[in-house]
């Protein structure tokens, strides 16, 4: 767990500098600074994965159709 905590600290410091904090919220409930940051981190990761997945799907669709056309010609 010591190894994990040290790692965790690095991850959080990275998050801190990478995302540069949050806008002051005007909500009647406290959104929580940590909650804001982790949300942004997860959101960016998931959003990024979605883009990669979509990009990968379009690439694989292009290759499949290209190979199909090639086979068809042969």
């Amino acid at each position: 767990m010591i190894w994990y905590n040290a790692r965790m600290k690095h991850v959080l410091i990275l998050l801190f500098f990478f995302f540069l904090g949050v806008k002051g919220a005007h909500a009647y409930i406290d959104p929580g600074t940590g909650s804001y940051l982790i949300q942004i981190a997860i959101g960016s990761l998931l959003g990024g994965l979605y883009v990669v997945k979509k990009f990968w799907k379009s690439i694989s669709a292009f290759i499949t159709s290209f190979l199909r056309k090639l086979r068809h010609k042969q």
Partner: protein
Amino acid sequence: MGNKILVETSSFRDPAGHVFYKGSKVYRQVNQQYRNDFEFFLDSGLYDSLKEKRLIVPFQKVAKSHAICPSAYAVLETPKISFISYPYEWSFSQLQDAAETTLTIQKIALEHGMSLKDASAFNIQFTAGKHLLIDVLSFEKYKKETPWVAYRQFCQHFLAPLALMSYRDVRLNQLLKTYLDGIPLDLASSLLPKKTWLNFSLASHIHLHAKTQKHFAKIPDNVKKRTVKMSKHSLLSIIDDLSSAVKKLRLALTTSQWGDYYASFSYSAEAFSHKKRIVSRFLDVLAPGIVWDLGANTGEFSYIAAKKGMELIAFDADFLTVEKNYRTVKKDHMERIIPLVVDFANPTPSLGWENRERQSLISRGPADCALSLALVHHLAIVNNVPFEKIAHFFSHIAHALIIEFVPKEDVQVKKLLSTREDIFLDYHQNAFEKAFSSFFEIVAVEKIHTSARIMYCMKKKNHD
């Protein structure tokens, strides 16, 4: 109640408005400071969309003269919800459905340029077979490129208790009684098994979330001064991931102490069917509107009342039994039944600010009628509660009673006494009748065929 104005004791945290009651009507005052958001809520079509999908309590604007303070911009009248229940009284699937309802509402809100500004489980109620949002002032205009304000609250109110119920123990939703703003994520993280770190959603929304909260709690000012953006695409990804995390959580239904109660019933099919006929007849005599089934088990007898058009609150102390009942109610569209987890030996207390924010079970009554079937022997023998005290309590929660007396010669009572000394010298029919006669008038008595059990129909004294 007359036309006296009563302000809802839980409606004070959000300055956007508050709920109050006048006579039998329910009103919600919208304050000037919420005007822009409220107008956008109506103009954007969000309200119509949610109303059409039966995801929000409907309302109509009434004259501003109904307002109870000068800060009013508008006054809304909403239908009365016959019974308000709380997350610590819900079964696993009820909480799960409430969570999904919240996320569905948030997705629809984002489509209309708005966002939920809170995600409290107390804002969701199960009524007429559907979960719906009862706080119509829960929305604010979506501010471009900002994260979800209510993300922390959603994780604490829904994801954490559901994960604990799924991975640890179904009874852990009782932590919500202590933590009214949801289970603290550091506590949830420490209670969840290590294997949940391998689940991406739980690892991020609970474990890492808890660690980040702890870390940044020490340095909030530095962070708040800075600015960061979160795309709507990222925000939607979060909502989708939360939704899939909630849906994937499962509860293993095993046979509980009570789960197979009907199967191991101490009397014959003939007796069971006769008992059903008696209950049906007594219900016809009393003709109640709202019935509390105090030990509903999987709801067999609640259904008799529901089929007669009565509103049923089906309580049971066993979590898995209530879970089963809820699943059946949902599957069979039994819209008049609300299954809830309540132990009548220790009913829900008043909680929250001034002990008035969340109401006790007693203050949410009395019911027109209470069904107490195969329950009194548990209270009297398992919990050592004398008949007088049971009768006194029942006279506070119901105007009428359909109650079963299970004598000592019954197999179930013998079973309860098999492992302990019989100190219950006053446990007999005469003492039972005497105790209940102090508070109730016995209208009818009928013995169940081929059984020693006796059914009573009673009306509270001095009550029409």
